[in-house]
């Protein structure tokens, strides 16, 4: 039993999990109907379902970001990539109301499959650009992705002409608003990406390779690892994941906004990864932790709304959470606290 407890306390996901449970408890205390689920029109309704649905795009971005951070990198262009992918999809689908044989039907400009593929391809190309700058040119990741962060939003605005493009094509709305087996479809997308990634990381050596690059890139190269290729692939995946998130977001709001879609998303994604216990210095990473981190951020937002605190405080609370989490992660801080807590006890014993 003692051994089990110790293993539990040493588990890396313990603290993110405890944070989430505490937040949910606060929610339940202030809002008695928080855990209530209703079955209506063939799917589930409730606060928890809502949180899951809204956290899905952030979880997707955070998954891609986790791998990038694990290789000692960072990708601050994901928000812009979200905007680009949303803009491409919205432009290619467009949608018109046409009367065909007396029935009103919505027609998309290109077949939806092609439009979605093009959006994801554009997002993956953005990732490829970042990856090449980092791995081949050797720029610092934060600067390499800063270029796309600045220019990418300009490109998204160029695509949408600075306007909000509204989509009129019902099948597209399924991505962000549809339900499968009673649960939001977006949750299934995020879960599928996570499961696929998890299998790839644990069933193949790729996860180990990525950790190796993060711990010591030079040693990884000397050990015969194709370090640059893997780094490029990781950035491509991060772009792809941001692209999927962009599709879900634009489908959810039935439009694409080049100016504001995915705004500050990079910061939330990095926050989710950090909350999930992956250190920004690279190396060990936790995919499940990042998903937990995304859930924590979304629950925090919902909590702030549900307990009636003005939403303006949201950012202050978020800042406080970041400060606490990073201090807890710092060995120096833990040593300092231990010094303060233990010293009086020791001198008292003497």
């Amino acid at each position, binding site marked *: 039993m003692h051994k089990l407890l110790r293993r539990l306390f040493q588990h890396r996901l313990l603290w993110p999990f405890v944070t989430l449970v505490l937040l949910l408890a606060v929610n339940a205390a202030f809002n008695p109907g928080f855990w209530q689920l209703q079955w209506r029109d063939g799917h589930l309704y409730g606060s928890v379902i809502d949180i899951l649905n809204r956290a899905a795009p952030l979880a997707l971005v955070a998954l891609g970001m986790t791998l990038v951070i694990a290789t000692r990198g960072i990708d601050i262009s994901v928000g812009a990539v979200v905007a680009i992918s949303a803009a491409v999809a919205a432009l290619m689908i467009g949608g018109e109301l046409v009367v065909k044989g007396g029935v009103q039907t919505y027609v998309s400009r290109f077949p939806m499959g092609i439009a979605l593929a093009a959006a994801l391809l554009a997002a993956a190309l953005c990732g490829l650009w970042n990856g090449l700058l980092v791995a081949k040119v050797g720029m610092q990741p934060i600067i390499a992705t800063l270029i796309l962060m600045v*220019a990418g939003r300009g490109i998204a*605005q*160029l695509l949408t002409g600075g306007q909000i493009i509204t989509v009129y094509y019902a099948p597209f709305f399924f991505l962000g608003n549809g339900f499968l087996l009673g649960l939001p479809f977006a949750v299934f997308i995020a879960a599928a990406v996570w499961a696929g990634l998890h299998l790839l990381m644990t069933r193949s050596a790729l996860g180990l390779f990525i950790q190796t690059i993060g711990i010591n890139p030079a040693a990884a190269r000397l050990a015969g690892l194709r370090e640059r290729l893997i780094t490029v692939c990781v950035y491509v995946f991060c772009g792809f994941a941001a692209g999927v998130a962009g599709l879900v977001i634009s489908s959810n709001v039935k439009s694409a906004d080049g100016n504001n879609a995915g705004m500050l998303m990079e910061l939330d994604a990095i*926050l989710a990864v*950090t909350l999930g216990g992956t250190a920004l210095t690279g190396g060990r990473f936790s995919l499940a932790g990042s998903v937990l981190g995304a859930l924590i951020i979304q629950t925090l937002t919902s909590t702030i709304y549900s307990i009636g605190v003005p939403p303006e*405080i*949201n*950012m202050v609370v978020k800042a406080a959470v970041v400060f606490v989490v990073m201090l807890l992660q710092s060995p*120096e801080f833990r040593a300092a606290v231990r010094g303060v807590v233990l010293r009086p006890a020791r001198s008292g014993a003497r």
Partner: protein
Amino acid sequence: MRRVLSRIDSRFVPLLGTIVVFALTAGFGSVMYSGFFSTQVFLNLLIDNAFLCIVGVGMTFVILSGGIDLSVGSVIALTTMVSAALVQQHQWSAWQAIPLVLAIGTLFGALMGWLIQRFRLQPFIVTLAGMFLARGLCYLISIDSISITDAAYTTIAQTRIALWQDGPSITIGAMLALLTIALGIWLAHATEFGRTVYAIGGSESSAVLMGLPVARTTVLVYTFSGFCSALAGVVFTFYMLSGYGLHAVGLELDAIAAVVIGGTLLSGGVGYVIGTLFGVLILGIIQTLIAFDGSLSSWWTRIVIGALLFVFCLLQRAFESRR
């Protein structure tokens, strides 16, 4: 030509590149658009980007020391908000409000610097949290824009200092920007603080072994950046005559871009404050060009700045590998 090039100290190459790009852009504008080549247009670059200049000086020191400061834009917003609230809602005079907001910004920077230094936290994350905190504090004061009608503020905002009789003029904000640049150059090259910043950026462990006050200087670098942000916020308040939580969104990226375009290496240790001035002027002249053209939309600014950043980063890499 080659002999001339080889005679130039290799440390000045990125800086010279920046100045040449600025001169070429200015020349292009002067040839293409009538009315572009006038002293007032060039002084307007300084007037419209005074706050960016001031923030850029602080950011240059942070980047020279090998760090980064993402909180500058929100500290500007917080400064405008606190000034506006004090002056408009609590009837403080400008002379009471300005020292207070400068102290707030300086303290804010010092606190982040202390966290970074004392607990070995990453500057990126600490200043990111600082960014959230400062913006959040703005919204706590008010979610709406507060416009300033105080006599002292409007007078300072409208004061123009003519260079000569009936000639082109600049504002107090632009004067403050030039003063800050001068202060930055003096700090970087004539003080122990400046030499230590360069040493830390070159190699922090070597700086420690040399017995330089690394811990104190690291905290001071972020303190100075906080002070610069607050001063930029004061200038921004004069410029906009209002306090608003959404002021200066994304300004930290413009500041970093200006520093990089100004020839400061992001790996730290190499760069000049005067380069940042030219970096800011290049960003400003691109906006002016697009405004003069009239047919280009505003988002082209972002794309061109991104492309410029790309080119300068490539040049930096080439320069680094040659050394």
